């Protein structure tokens, strides 16, 4: 569904007079394949290149070398860019920067309206999208009065209304409180489980990626680690070198293992760890 072929992205750093100071290689030959229906997580510290990569998927940025294909279409092809953006929708980090409608339903309808969908169809899409994110009851409200988590869910509904095949979420919970984070992640999981939506979640919160099918960890523009959540989480020291933190459960499992207890690597849930500890009694 999404294919990244040796994508490299460089930009020129200039000083205040416009003189070239250096070239920054934000992405360095990144290649990966995402299948329809996958739930993919891309992790990385703040300057790792993960957001830069996300912006390539729907053509906000174009590679300096290499290519990205969405559903077989090359993002560099100007004539296909709008189709690509209908196929792969994006939700950004700041809830306030994405909402423009006077009411929730107006905002969600903006996208379909812009691509010329017929009016009755727009309402249908708006309603089903709001129901999918559990914000249907708020449809007549002004977005100003919503919490961060609610705004993010409205943004997701706005993308859903475009009937995409894939949703890319760039650190969607970074500015939310724990409840808001939980609600947004719940919606994302439901979209993947029930609607079989392809999800690409960019984050640095490891506890959000526990349910992903595959995890990529980025560092300095490259993919440094990849695998299932269990495989990736077992490499605690490597993750810490990459400036990431593992969930407390995983760290605790590692500490117990270091103290001589027979606990396998890659523990990611409380139930798993408790199970192993109980066996030792």
């Amino acid at each position, binding site marked *: 569904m999404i294919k990244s072929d040796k994508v490299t992205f460089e930009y020129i750093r200039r000083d205040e007079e416009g003189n070239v100071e250096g070239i920054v290689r934000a992405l360095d030959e990144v290649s990966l394949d995402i299948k329809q229906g996958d739930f993919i997580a891309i992790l990385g510290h703040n300057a790792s290149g993960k957001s830069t990569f996300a912006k390539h998927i729907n053509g906000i940025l174009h590679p300096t070398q290499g290519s990205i294909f969405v559903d077989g279409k090359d993002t560099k092809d100007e004539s296909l860019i709008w189709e690509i953006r209908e196929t792969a929708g994006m939700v950004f980090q700041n809830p306030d920067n994405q909402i423009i409608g006077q009411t929730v339903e107006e905002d969600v309808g903006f996208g379909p309206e812009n691509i010329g969908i017929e009016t009755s169809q727009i309402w249908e899409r708006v309603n089903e999208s709001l129901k999918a994110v559990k914000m249907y009851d708020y449809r007549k409200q002004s977005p100003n009065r919503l919490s961060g988590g609610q705004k993010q869910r409205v943004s997701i509904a706005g993308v859903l209304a475009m009937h995409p095949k894939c949703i890319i979420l760039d650190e969607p919970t970074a500015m939310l409180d724990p409840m808001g984070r939980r609600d947004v992640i719940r919606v994302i999981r439901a979209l993947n489980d029930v609607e079989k939506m392809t999800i690409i979640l960019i984050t*640095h919160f490891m506890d959000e990626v526990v349910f992903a099918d595959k995890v990529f960890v980025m560092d300095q523009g490259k993919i440094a680690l990849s695998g299932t959540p269990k495989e990736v989480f077992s490499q605690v020291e490597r993750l810490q070198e990459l400036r990431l933190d593992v969930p407390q*459960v995983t760290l605790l499992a590692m500490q117990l293992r270091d103290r001589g207890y027979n606990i396998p690597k890659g523990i990611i849930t409380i139930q798993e760890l408790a199970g192993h500890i109980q066996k030792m009694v």
Partner: protein
Amino acid sequence: MKIIIDHLNHHYEAGTAMEVKALDNVELVIEKAQMIGLIGHTGSGKSTLVQHLNGLLKPSSGTVYIDGEDIFEKGYSLKKLRSRVGLVFQYPEHQLFDETVFKDVCFGPLNLGLSQKEAELSAYEALRMVGLGDDSILQSPFDLSGGQKRRAAIAGVLAMKPEILILDEPTAGLDPRGCREILDLLKKLQKEKEITVIIVSHSMEEVAEYVDRIVVMNQGKIVFDDIPKSVFRHHEELEEMGLRAPEVVYLLEYLRNAGLPVRVDLTTVKEASDEIVKVLEEKRG
């Protein structure tokens, strides 16, 4: 530098149809050089509360005493207040504006009326405290990394030599290592400079590890005010308020319910690991 918050009430849009009671009879005492975590869901009143401490907001009733003086009394110098109580808003790097980091950090002290030389000395000291070296301070603030920008913005407030430092979500948007760097810095300021630090936060794990005391707000009221271990024992009530306890609390309870006699009032990974090992050894021996 003792802060006493006395029967503080604050109504937004009082008298209108949209009146909101943001603070409801809040009472709190904060002693010098404590590190306090102020937690609560969005809308609980925590940001409203801290904005009273440096006079940005005025109460509807009640008052705040700093070192025995009523800061809302006529004639109390707000300028003096703001040199003693520094408030760092969320995403403080959005406030960076000057040509160089150094000039940006001088802005605050200059505004307080210090001479150029005094301001520069304060700025240099503050930048050293946050760990920004000579090579970064002459750069444009916009060329720094996210974590460095964050530290530069905090330096801008530290340069005014506050006795109380309040930070609203100081780790928001930072990656895990960035979070640790900022929290370690705040702990250092508390211990070495005896600055009272108040952190408004959503992250229970962070708060549990670093603060001496946690104050939990809900719907404008203070519902808990105690050491972290005691506050997190009430995790069911915390969940009803949209908050959580650190993950290890849930693990320890799970084990206890399954029959392992572990303590459940621990909040960090190291404590939990020590406790589990202790109990397992006892069972063997």
